[in-house]
């Protein structure tokens, strides 16, 4: 029996475009991960300020804003490295393009820094006060106004949510890459960012009650992340043939081994089991589970960016 012939050949061989799109390399997933994690850290820190937990002397909300600034700056540096016309980067801030998620992102980043700095100023570290003695006076003034602290908390939660959501919207608006065409992608990235942030705070928190609280919260985030994956896959599986082919790249295609082993099992399921046992006091808390969650979040961004670029309308067109 002679089978149906479907072949397409092209003389085009543009670098990083053919044979499959690989324009965005390591810089973008690293940025998306760090941006998402910082978003989660801002929401957690903002919630602590809002709920009055900052009254406890060793509250993590005083240490994580500075870490957030460092991580976000590292992420933005990765983003800068990705630009191929670097000297023109300032052009981002000479305009606002309403329909461009990247333009929204550029301006959100401008809003995020003052919110983080305001959080740092509530109680700056000793080394900061040694460096700039005036910080102590500013901190004392802010501490007298509880409403102001609450508002800084609200601002951090709000901008954190915007930052976390935008990293997903950036990809999901691209009609050309079927795997990204889901309105749930921003939910996945936001929850994954919250989960990585909760894991980080669980890892570094000096306050035991806080560490325990974050471990419990992380379990919740991991369950929501699994649920979001199911919903995202269901949505794509019930869409066009192009989208079904795209999601099969993760289910049983070339990206499946990495996805199932590193993102689902080692990044979500196993740390979730470990942390469930830890919060029910059957085993001790160890850094293993939080580290697995953080690594899983990073690999998730790499998988989604790589598989998304690989997914294509032409591939489906030929099938």
């Amino acid at each position, binding site marked *: 029996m002679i089978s*149906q012939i479907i072949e397409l050949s092209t003389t*085009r061989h543009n670098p*990083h475009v053919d044979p499959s799109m690989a324009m965005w390399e390591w810089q973008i997933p690293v940025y998306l991960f760090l941006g998402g994690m910082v978003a989660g850290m801002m929401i957690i820190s903002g919630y602590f300020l809002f709920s009055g937990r900052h009254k406890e002397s060793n509250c993590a909300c005083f240490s994580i804003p500075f870490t957030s600034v460092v991580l976000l700056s590292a992420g933005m540096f990765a983003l800068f490295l990705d630009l191929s016309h670097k000297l023109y980067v300032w052009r981002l801030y000479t305009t606002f393009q309403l329909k461009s998620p990247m333009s929204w992102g550029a301006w959100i980043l401008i809003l995020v820094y003052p919110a983080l700095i305001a959080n740092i100023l509530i109680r700056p570290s000793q080394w900061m006060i040694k460096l700039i003695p005036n910080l102590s006076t500013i901190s004392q003034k802010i501490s007298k106004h509880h409403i102001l602290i609450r508002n800084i908390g609200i601002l951090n939660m709000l901008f954190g949510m915007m930052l976390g959501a935008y990293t997903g919207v950036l990809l999901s608006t691209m009609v050309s890459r079927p795997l990204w065409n889901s309105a749930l992608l921003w939910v996945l990235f936001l929850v994954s960012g919250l989960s990585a942030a909760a894991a980080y705070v669980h890892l570094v928190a000096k306050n035991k009650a806080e560490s325990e609280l974050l471990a419990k919260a992380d379990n919740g985030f991991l369950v929501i992340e699994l649920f979001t994956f199911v919903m995202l896959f269901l949505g794509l599986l019930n869409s066009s043939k192009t989208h079904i082919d795209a999601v099969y790249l993760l289910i049983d295609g070339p990206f499946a081994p990495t996805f199932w082993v590193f993102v689902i099992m080692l990044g979500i399921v196993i740390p979730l089991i470990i942390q469930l046992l830890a919060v029910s006091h059957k085993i001790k808390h160890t850094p293993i589970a939080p580290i697995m969650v953080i690594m899983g979040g990073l690999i998730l961004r790499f998988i989604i960016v790589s598989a998304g670029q690989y997914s294509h309308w*032409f591939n489906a067109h030929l099938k």
Partner: protein
Amino acid sequence: MPRYGMVIDTHKCVGCNDCVVACKTENNIPEGYNRDWIVTESHGKYPAVHLEIRTERCNHCSNTPCVSCCPTGASHIHDFGGVVLVDHEMCIGCKACVESCPYDARFIHPDGYADKCTFCIHRVEQGMKPACVEVCPTYCMHFGDLDDPNSEVSQLLNSRKWHVNLPDAGTEPNIFYLT
């Protein structure tokens, strides 16, 4: 105001690459990069096998994801003829437009900016045809105003069967292939 488009007769295209060479020469395209290219598509079941040879490039779509996603406004629709262009001095090389094109028609020029077919707007504004259309030895390529019912392209589209590439992507391409 015209709305420029291209009509390509796949019954006449022999895939000679003259259009590719003309584009590279006219627009000084670096070695290893292409603004236009030849695609050969075969499908069917022997003996009813169908072969289509066509020359492809940016489709200068009416619904432009590459323009929408651009954070600086470098990717834009030109006032003259609705041609999709990139302002090299405004492009930061973020590659969002390259990613957003379902036809993969864009690339990053070695000088750092996003690059693609311009319909040779510098020639068209002087009343000439795009270089690829000018050199085609089989006269399979036609360029003109899609909004003018008397233009050659409009009349071909009214009288012949045609298709566009990836219509399901919803970009409303302005390059049409006669079949």
